[in-house]
Each structure stands twice: as C-alpha cells, then as structure tokens.
C-alpha cells in the first residue's frame, strides 16, 4: 500500500494537534477547570491517529477515554470537544457526559464507554446492524490492555467471529491498566495471541509507528467489508503520563519511561519525514503555528462557553417517542 506524502503530512499534523490538545486540556485540569479526572493520551498518538485515518467518514468508532485525538480525527470539533471536557453547555453532550462519554453522532462516533466492558458488546451490536443492512461500513472498537481482560471481550470477540461481523478490534496496549501492568494481569504475552481462540486473524504491531498502524487497520477494514469478519490488532505503545492528570505514576520504573520516551511517536515520525524530505523547518513552524491557533481557539471557545442551567440536568433521560395509534 502506498501512502501519499500528503497523507503523511496529515498524519504528522494530526499527531501534533492531538498532543497539543491533550497538553492544553491537562493544563486546564491542573487549573481545576475540569470536573473529575482527565485521562491523558500523550505518547499514544500514533495508534489513535493511525487507526482513525484508516477509516472513512461512514465507519463507526468507539474511541477510548484516552483517545481525544481520535475524536478529533474522526471529525469532532476541538472547541466543542474541549467544552464537553469542561462540562459546558456547548459540549457535544451538553455537559452531561464529560471526557469519558464524548460522542459525536455527526461523525459516527458512538461514544467512549466509561464502563469499559461495554465497548465489546456495543461494538458487536453496531457491526451487526451494518451486516444486516449491508451498509458498507465497519466498526472500529478501541480498547486498552486492561479492558481486554473483561468477560465481554471474550463474549463479543467470539460472537463477532462466528457471525463474521464487520468489526476491527484494536487494542491500545500501553502496558498498564491503571497501575496494574499487563505482565501482571495477563497469562499470555500479547493480547493478540488470543485471536486464535476466536479463529480470527490477529497481529501485534508497533503502536508508535503510525504507518504500520494505518496499514494494518486498513487491511483489517477491507477484510471486514468483504465479509471476512473481524481482526484483532494489538498496538504496543506507551502513555507518557500517569493514568489521569492526578496520577504521578510512581508504579512505573523510570528506565521504562525513559526507554519509551526515546521512541516517542511524533519525534520518530518527524525524523522519518525529514529524512524523506517531506518535512522541513518551514513546515514544522507552519504546522506548529496552525495547531497552536487551533488549540487556542478551542480553549477560548470552551472557556467562554456558558455553564448549562442546572435544570437541564434532568433533560434527555428519555427520548419521547409518540407511538402512533393505528
């Protein structure tokens, strides 16, 4: 598969945007402007961006709580995203969901699942509809190594396999659930090793190599569209910060963190693009300024957005449907 220069620049820019967005959101969290916790995905950009760019607009995505960049790549407006994180009325969910329930129906983002075990059945159900309708869409379900231990992982992967459902399972293995390392939690070395239990293709990829992630997800997508069923892709990556903005992660050895920092996805890709002559300082500055402006605008929009009225808290509990009388 050939990836155009244009796409590569896009990939780079998107990763920079993602990181910048996360950093800005983290700052706001430290200023106390975000209710609750904020989960930073700095370091995982290649996985989230690479996987998302492999989708079309029609495809559905269930992102992780750490994949704010995925929301943006899929089509969410950074300003409204930031507003939702801050709980403002202009946010995608009117402030009702927050960072762990971001959803954007317009870009076919089914929404983050905070109770992680729900990702698997919901993805399978969404894929079921696409198969029944022959809709030409797939479902990309992203989940962490921690979530892969939940019972529904087993139920849903099995079901997706026996029913040949158009779903691509992408595990963002950053080696830690919250503080529990994957090595402690898993009987096997790779999440993707479980693929054979469900008779589906599985592979492990370098989650910090955006091109590899992109290509692998693309292939899995084609397979799903062709009716060949699901694929399990494990992206090995690393979150550079703690579990949440409150977490100083004392449970991870510094050597480990340092080793992964050397393999920073953005830095790595920048290097590769420079080598190929696709990226130079001028581009970098342009991209940096553009991203800065975008993130500034998003922050400003969010900070200037009103709080929702308290009474709005009881709206949307039910959707009123007038059942037509015959």
């Amino acid at each position: 598969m050939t990836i155009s220069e244009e796409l590569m620049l896009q990939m780079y820019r998107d990763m920079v945007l993602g990181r910048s967005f996360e950093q800005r959101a983290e700052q706001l969290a430290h200023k106390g402007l975000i209710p609750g916790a904020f989960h930073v995905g700095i370091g995982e950009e290649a996985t989230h961006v690479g996987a998302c760019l492999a989708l079309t607009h029609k495809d559905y995505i269930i992102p992780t709580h750490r994949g704010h960049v995925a929301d943006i790549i899929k089509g969410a407006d950074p300003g409204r995203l930031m507003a939702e994180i801050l709980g403002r009325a202009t946010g995608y969910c009117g402030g009702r969901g927050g960072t762990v329930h971001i959803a954007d129906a317009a870009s076919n983002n089914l929404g983050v699942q905070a109770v992680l075990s729900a990702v698997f059945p919901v993805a399978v159900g969404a894929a079921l509809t696409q198969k029944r309708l022959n809709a030409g869409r797939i479902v990309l379900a992203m989940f962490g190594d921690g979530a892969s231990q939940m019972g529904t992982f087993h139920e849903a992967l099995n079901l997706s396999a026996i029913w040949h459902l158009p779903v691509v399972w992408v595990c963002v293995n950053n080696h830690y659930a919250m503080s529990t390392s994957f090595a402690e939690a898993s009987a096997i070395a790779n999440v993707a090793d479980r693929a054979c239990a469900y008779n589906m293709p599985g592979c492990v990829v370098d989650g910090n190599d955006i091109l590899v992630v992109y290509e692998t997800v693309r292939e899995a997508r084609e397979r799903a569209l062709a009716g060949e069923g699901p694929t399990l892709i494990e992206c090995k990556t690393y979150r550079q910060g703690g579990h949440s903005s409150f977490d100083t992660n004392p449970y991870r050895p510094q050597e480990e963190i340092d080793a992964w920092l050397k393999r920073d996805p953005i830095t790595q890709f920048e290097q590769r693009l420079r080598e190929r002559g696709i990226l130079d300082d001028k581009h970098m500055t342009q991209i940096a300024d553009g991203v800065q402006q975008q993130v500034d605008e998003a922050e400003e929009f969010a900070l200037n957005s009103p709080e929702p009225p308290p009474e709005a808290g009881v709206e949307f509990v039910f959707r009123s449907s007038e059942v037509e009388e015959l």
Partner: protein
Amino acid sequence: MTTREITFRDALSEALREEMVREESVFIIGEDIYGGPGGYGGAFKVTKDLGKDFSDRLLDTPMIEQTIVGAAVGAAMTGSRPVAEIMFEDFITLAMDLLVNTAAKTHYMTGGQYCVPIVVRAACGAVGVGPQHSQTWTSWFMHVPGLHVVLPSTPYDAKGLLKTAIRDDNPVLFLEHKKLYNVKGNVPEEEYVIPFGEASVLCPGDDVTVVAIGYMAGLASHVAGTLRDQGLSVEVIDPRTLAPLDLETISQSVRKTHKVVVVAEDCKTAGPTAEIAALVSEACFEYLDAPVGRVGARHAPIAHNVSMAEYIVPDATDIHEAVKSVMAW
C-alpha cells in the same frame, strides 16, 4: 371490533410478528429462540412460530447475556430495533451493566445524540423452578432513570404493550410472568397499541383500592370477586407499566375509596409496593383512612420445595388478608 381468544404467549408472538412485518429493523436476539430449522422457539416457546417466516431475524446466540443486551444496545444505536430475550429474569443480573449503565444512560450521556430503542424481554415469576429461576424484580429497574418497565397481566395487554415497547425509542424491560403464558384472553383481530403510563381498572369498586402488579392482578381480581359476595366493593387496578407509572388513576381511586393495598410478587422489602405506597401517601394523604397496605414475597429467595415456595410467594389468601386488615384499621 372482532376479538378471539388466544393465549398470552400467542399474543406476544403476534406482536413480534406484526412489528417485524412493519419494520425491517426489528429483530430478535437471544438464546435458543430460533434453534435451527425445527425451531426451539425460545425457552417458553414465544418465538416458536416465527422461525419459518423470519429466519433471518431470529438470532440465536451463545450463552452471553451481557453481550445479548450489549449487542442490542450497539445495534439500536446504529439504526436497528432489537428485541433481546433473557431466558429467566434471574439472569438479567448478568447484563445489569449493559442495561443500567449503557442502555439506560446513553441517550442522556450523549446529550440526546443517540437513543437506544431496545426491548429486553424476560420471563419472571415463581413456578417451582428454584431460587435462581423464579424472581420477579421490578423496583431495581424502576429505580433507574432512562428505563421503562412493563408487566402485562392479560393477553390483551401483552400484545398492545409489546408493540408499544418495540416502537418506543427508549430501552424497555418487558417482563412476562411464566404462569401467564398459557392464560387465554380476548384479543382484537385488528392491530392496536397500548400506551405506556396507562393503568387498567380491572374491576370498579368503592370500598377499597387494590393496586396489583403483573400476575397478582389476576389473583386480586379473583379475590375481589370473593369479597364482593361478602359485601365489600373492591376496585382492582393493574398499573401495567411501572415506569412510567400511572399515579393519577391510582390516586383518583384512593381519593374515592380512602383505603388501598398494593400487591406484587416481588420481595416486599423495597419492592415496587414500597415506592407506590410512598407515592400514594404523598399524593393522597388527607384521603387515607388507614395506612397503605402492602403484599409481597417474604424476605427469602424462592425455595425449590413447593410448599416452601408457596409460603414465600404471595397468594390470594395474602391479598384477602391484607384487604381485610386495611378495612379493619
């Protein structure tokens, strides 16, 4: 309007059939609901007649309650209208998270962007099948904002309410008491729906109101007949849907009779009777001539042994005693 006598089971089956004909997006998912060319047709045979005509719409799954309900949620969010069958209501606990945290909350959490038009049908009630196959749990689910909870007590109600449940854009827990499946009743030939939030007055009366839920509604009507011969005029009300609850009909009745007993097969402690009693007390306090009476199962799982089970689960005598007790206050 012509009616014919059919069973509760057949009424449900007709509802499913009619809605599948009406909407392509309606399908049924659960364990052993299709079961191959012969068709197991569901543990209680509700879908037995549907396999032939709707083979692509009856999806048999492995034993995966969480994913049955969860897949229904995902499918519903993307345009389908699934009906998920949970074999015994006792098993619904396996899918609690998907029902309570995902199905019930999605419309809200996404600020109205997605809705979850699922129906989760489950068989409830004690019929001598032991502690993990006998429960009726309703107040757990009344307690969840975003869920509708429905218990029909007649074939007429079953069909009309199931059709409404399928057309409802919200998640609906639809409970079918096992003892009702073979009960016959008059059902119109023509299509009809019954809206949620409308109680049914099974028999009018002036001396005391009995609010009876699900299977208890039939028992209460029977008790009302006996009491009528003894000179007591009992008004029996079947709420039919617990969420939304038709408090207005119940209140109107209590404002007339000044005495009320609430009956359910659920455990009495924190059962639906507790919520309804509190609501009645709030709405009709100055009309009450006695404390609100309640009938519910004793505080124990439902035993395998038949006489133990009968001791635990309320029956006609318990209803009779409760009415007498309220009258004598």
